[in-house]
């Protein structure tokens, strides 16, 4: 089987601190990491490879040249090879343009059986790029997959999470799935794969290599535009409920009642 996993490099929010005055998240000086959901996507691909050893897993990422680090990280987990999509023409792409670029790259890789993305990126939080790629490529789509139950070369049995519970599907390939946390913890890099990642030469593809139309990428290809960014109002100080537990509990219940919350 031939699998492409899409990964994104994002700021590491776990390093961020909350500003004690404005309660906003301080983002400066934060390292870049692989989007956590994309690590689950890589894990899903590698679970399939464990079952079907002939499987080849290629990771792709659209981003600045530094995003190479994210691709090396997933190679160290066991991904076979990687391609970086990087060009100033890609900058400013919204989800429509991004899904177009990734779909063009997947076309270029050719004969891909399965495309795997994370459920969403933790910086943008849109969950739109995976479904967008599926739409560009006219592929069947199942989102928020939290388990691969059966693996055959031309079909998967999968478990997807929704608000109502877990949905089970037979998914014929080729197809696209997005992956949630239930897939299982992403595996640790092995020594062998780490050394492979260090030596890996990651090709960089620009619009030329993927035959992308310039009108459809970057800012030009992005119908949405951000017109304003602002900090939301935040609540005031925390009120400490004093006393021994019985008094604390009664006081708390009383306040919630007065505020018509309960």
């Amino acid at each position, binding site marked *: 089987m031939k699998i492409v996993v899409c990964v994104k490099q994002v700021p590491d929010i776990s390093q961020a601190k909350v500003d004690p005055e404005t309660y906003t998240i301080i983002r400066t000086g934060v390292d870049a990491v692989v989007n956590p959901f994309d690590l689950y996507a890589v894990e899903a691909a590698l679970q399939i490879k464990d079952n079907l050893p002939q499987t080849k897993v290629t990771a792709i990422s659209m981003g600045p040249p530094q995003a190479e680090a994210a691709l090396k990280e997933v190679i160290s987990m066991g991904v076979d090879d990687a391609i970086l999509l990087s060009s100033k023409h890609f*900058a400013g792409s919204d989800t429509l343009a991004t899904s177009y670029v990734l779909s063009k790259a997947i076309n270029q890789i050719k004969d891909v059986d399965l495309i795997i993305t994370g459920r969403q990126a933790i910086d943008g939080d*849109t969950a739109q790029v995976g*479904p967008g790629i599926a739409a560009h490529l006219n592929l069947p789509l199942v989102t928020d997959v939290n388990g691969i139950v059966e693996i055959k070369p031309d079909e998967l049995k999968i478990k997807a*999470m*929704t608000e*109502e*519970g877990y949905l089970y599907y037979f998914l*014929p390939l080729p197809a696209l799935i997005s992956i949630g946390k239930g897939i299982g913890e992403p595996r640790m890099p092995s020594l062998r794969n780490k050394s492979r990642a260090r030596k890996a030469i990651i090709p960089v593809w620009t619009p030329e290599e993927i035959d992308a139309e310039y009108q459809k990428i970057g800012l030009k290809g992005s119908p949405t535009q951000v*017109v304003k960014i602002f900090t939301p109002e935040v609540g005031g100080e925390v009120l400490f409920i004093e006393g021994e537990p019985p008094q604390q509990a009664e006081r708390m219940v009383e306040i919630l009642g007065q505020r018509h919350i309960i």
Partner: protein
Amino acid sequence: MSIKVVIDRCVSCGVCVKECPVAAIAMNEENLPEINLDKCTLCGICIDKCPTGAIVRTHQAQKAQEDYDQYRGIMVVAEREDGEIARVTYELLGKATRLSTHLKQPVTAVHLGPATDQEVRELIASGADRVIIVENEELNIPLVGVRARALHDLVVDELPEIILAGSTSQGRPLLSKLAVKFQTGLTADCTGLDVEMPDRHLLQTRPAWGGSIMATILTAHNRPQMATVRPRVMRRLKPDYNRKGEVIRIKTRPENVEDPVKFIELIKESTSKVRLDNADIIVSGGRGIKSPDNFTLIEKLANLLNGAVGSSRPPVDDGWIDHAHQVGQTGRTVAPKLYVAVGISGAIQHLVGMQSSECIVAINKDQEAPILKVADYAIIGDLFKVVPEMIKALEKRQQ
């Protein structure tokens, strides 16, 4: 859309360099600001802050949609949950009705799959001027491809200027597929919607970075304008059963309902009565509850409050509770009326998933716990003493 510095107006004050949230602006050798377009997100902060108006947006010619004016009206995509029309659908109708007072255009509810007369009445009473029911039974099956094809045909017929759906596991992929087919803009998880007249632009406001900043987004040159909207944020109208509406029952083409994906079954999550996504009240447990058995304490409190059970990441990772209950970055983002955090210290990954809640109560032994930064009320003490007392106090109140 792009951005540039008008050199004649620049006084080299450096304010833009300081204000840029993504460090995309730097002074060059001539002490003039240069904007790195690879980093720039076009947020516009520098435009607002520049004291001399030297930074401007440049509008590059975008493919003008000649039929731009043909697109009229607001379409709300209904969804079902647990065998009935989901609450988010009524919330969307409430919002759409308010937007329509500016746009002077009807609100159309689209229901993919059969709907009863009672349900249609409810949609009209809640703000729909027109209800289109696509009656094919197959649309009841949770297959996004089938729903997307049926909706696509309807949008081609109707040409709405705005399409709204819930920011849910159904709504997000559905509109994502549609946005690509129509090559138009889609904004996820909006918490605010407004229209800008006379351009009829939909101003879509959404949280970024777990709600620590908000962004307002619009789709200037493409139609339809599409957004998914976070459940429980918009207000539904008080139903008015005297409202009149047009009811249209149609069927989609048979080839639209054929799909290569085979749905097998739905296994409902049974560990809690109320689910996170539409709960008014959530009680969450963290590492502080010490053992999986102690989740019964959390459940008891949640049940008394008619709320849902949530969890921070550690109990999920340790297998104490299913991942469906996880609140936070790799779980669900929630914003209930009341969020009770029991024994949760408040790692930033948890805070981004719940800090938009209206009222936050933290029960924690540590007075320095980060959760207190976002909490409205803090009960400092032993949760194994405080929670049973809370249960007692609530039982007393309910008698």
